């Protein structure tokens, strides 16, 4: 049996639930993979793991320590979801004064132990594979486990949500209806969900970086604003879901 662990950091448990449902729906996998550590199921064996899935970003020293310890016990580490891969939606507070942030929520803000910016897990440990999404597509986890079982890893196609729209035969919501859509700059994997529901993508799989540069990205954002997108839509990808990539793209 291949031993699998699921570790949760700062996150919503959504990717864990998605993985759990996907795994339980594939009986042939249940015969090959064994859940060793999964607090939601009450499983707490901590000796060693073949695969460690990590959900969530790192937002305090306690989590950082826990993550390092789990990494030592694991052969392969998979970052699960946009939070683990890029920092996630909670990155929207990055760059702000953390003391101010705490004050908006807590009567005693100084008691709260929290980093000023949430970190993607690759800031702390070596990551072997990344599955992005908010939430991840359960099929991606199943795909990963099947490939792992035969000794390989899934191939990653560097493409945008647009490619999925084309493959699914969907009419472009931006071209045909003038609906602002982040699909062209967003990592694929969801199956073009939002356009299939007649709305624009809002970037929850994170910003694509392979072939974007600062000028082209800014031109694209300008276009969205002209189509009537609220400024917040751009903030959600540039400072939220795609925070790390955006910082990287802006440098180059």
């Amino acid at each position: 049996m291949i031993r699998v662990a699921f570790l949760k950091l700062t996150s919503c448990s959504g990717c864990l639930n998605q993985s759990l449902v996907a795994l339980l729906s594939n009986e042939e996998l249940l015969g090959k993979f064994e859940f060793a550590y999964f607090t939601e199921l009450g499983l707490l064996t901590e000796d060693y793991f073949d695969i460690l899935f990590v959900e969530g970003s790192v937002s305090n020293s306690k989590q950082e320590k826990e993550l390092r310890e789990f990494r030592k016990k694991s052969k392969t580490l998979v970052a699960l979801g946009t939070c683990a891969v890029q920092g996630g939606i909670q990155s929207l507070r990055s760059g702000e004064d953390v003391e101010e942030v705490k004050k908006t929520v807590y009567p005693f803000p100084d008691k709260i132990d929290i980093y000023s910016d949430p970190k993607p897990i690759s800031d702390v440990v070596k990551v072997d594979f990344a599955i992005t999404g908010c939430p991840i597509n359960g099929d991606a986890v199943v795909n990963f486990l099947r490939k792992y079982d035969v000794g390989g890893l899934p191939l990653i196609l560097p493409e945008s949500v647009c490619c999925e729209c084309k493959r699914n035969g969907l009419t472009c919501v931006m071209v045909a209806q003038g609906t602002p859509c982040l699909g062209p700059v967003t990592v694929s994997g969801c199956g073009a969900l939002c356009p299939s529901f007649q709305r624009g993508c809002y970037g929850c799989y994170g910003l694509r970086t392979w072939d974007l540069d600062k000028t082209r990205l800014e031109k694209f954002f300008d276009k969205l604003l002209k189509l009537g997108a609220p400024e917040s839509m751009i903030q959600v990808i540039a400072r939220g879901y795609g925070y790390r990539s955006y910082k990287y793209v802006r440098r180059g």
Partner: protein
Amino acid sequence: MSHLRTQPLVRVEGEGEIAVVVDGNNRVIDVEYHITEAPRFFEYIVRNKHFTIVPDLVSRICGLCGSSYELGAARAFEVGFEINVPEKIEKYRVMIHLAERIKSHVLHIGFLNLPDLIGTRTFMDLEKRNPEIFRIIINLVKTSEFLMKSLGGRIHNVVPIQVGGVSKLISREEAVKLGKLMRDVLAPSLEKFADFILSLETYPDEKQELVLCTVLEEGYPHMSTMIECNDTRMPAYEFYEKTVEVIQRDNKTALLYKLNGRPYVVGPIARFNKNRDKLHPMTIDLLRQYGWNRKLNNVFQGAVARIAETHDAMIRILEFLENYESISTSGVLKPVTGSEMNLCVNAIEAPRGILYHRYTVDKYGLITEANLVTPTAQNIAALEEIGKHMVLNEVLNENILDTLRKVAVAFDPCISCSVHSMRVKIVKKY
């Protein structure tokens, strides 16, 4: 001399800890349930964001009840800006919400609660002990997943719900197909599962005096701007902003909520005990067959309320799908010309209880302030009181920790909902 002993809280959503304080004779003198979840400051990050994108943002608060957040927020803005959602479209959104209730309850009973009821360590042990129920649970999870995906695109962070309506509805053909699948697959599995859960004789029966709060509605509680607490009724705004006390304990990220100094309970048991006569007649029949058409005595019987709600939701969705008419959705969003400061308030019954939203929006449509109160945050005080009452003055042993853990699981705390209220009255505990 006192010392503190903690153990991780398992079989709950998110991360928490139970702290038991004992005296020199090892007797329990205090119990605290801690949420160790790191906060994500949603009330801060929605600030300065346009209200139209807020439902998608707040749905990320919870990986299990995201649609409650989405719909709750969308409705808050619709109330605040007087946007009318056509009745049929509203009904579609309610169905997504009911589908989520099925998904969440099935996951809770099956994966988290059932091991306590039948005395196994985890859900996975069930595979050998009762393979039939194991398969049924998996089957229910799969079908509820399919239902969520068909209506909302994915299991959580559903796609179509937007301020003003939905972006797209399924077609009549899709609805009929889905209805058939539910009748053929979901309904029989759920019947067997209900039979199993309602026939269990392992529920403790001692009476607990609970203050029960729900949203106030004509039908079974769903969504409203009014709250009912035991027999007192008041607007949600008054209840959450002026009446309940908010307490932050030392070094803790979770806030506690109390009403007149007392804990109160939200969620399935509150909805069931106050409104079970409003469940679908077929559900009431089902309960009658097993002798459960009565008030539940304590939180450990919560699985009964969850089964009843799951059954009720399934029948309502079936009826909806089998009588489905396609509706055009063109132009759900209206441009908003709000006043200087708009107050947008709503309360929705998430699977675990009342979820309160309050947003203040400026004339540009940007959020200036938000207050979100989650069901679990409201239940923590009650959870603690009940747990403490059960073990106080007993000598510490493994059974005590086990009891305290069972109390937590019975409440189904979803501590991933790491948003917290930002106001107001501070009560010193010590």
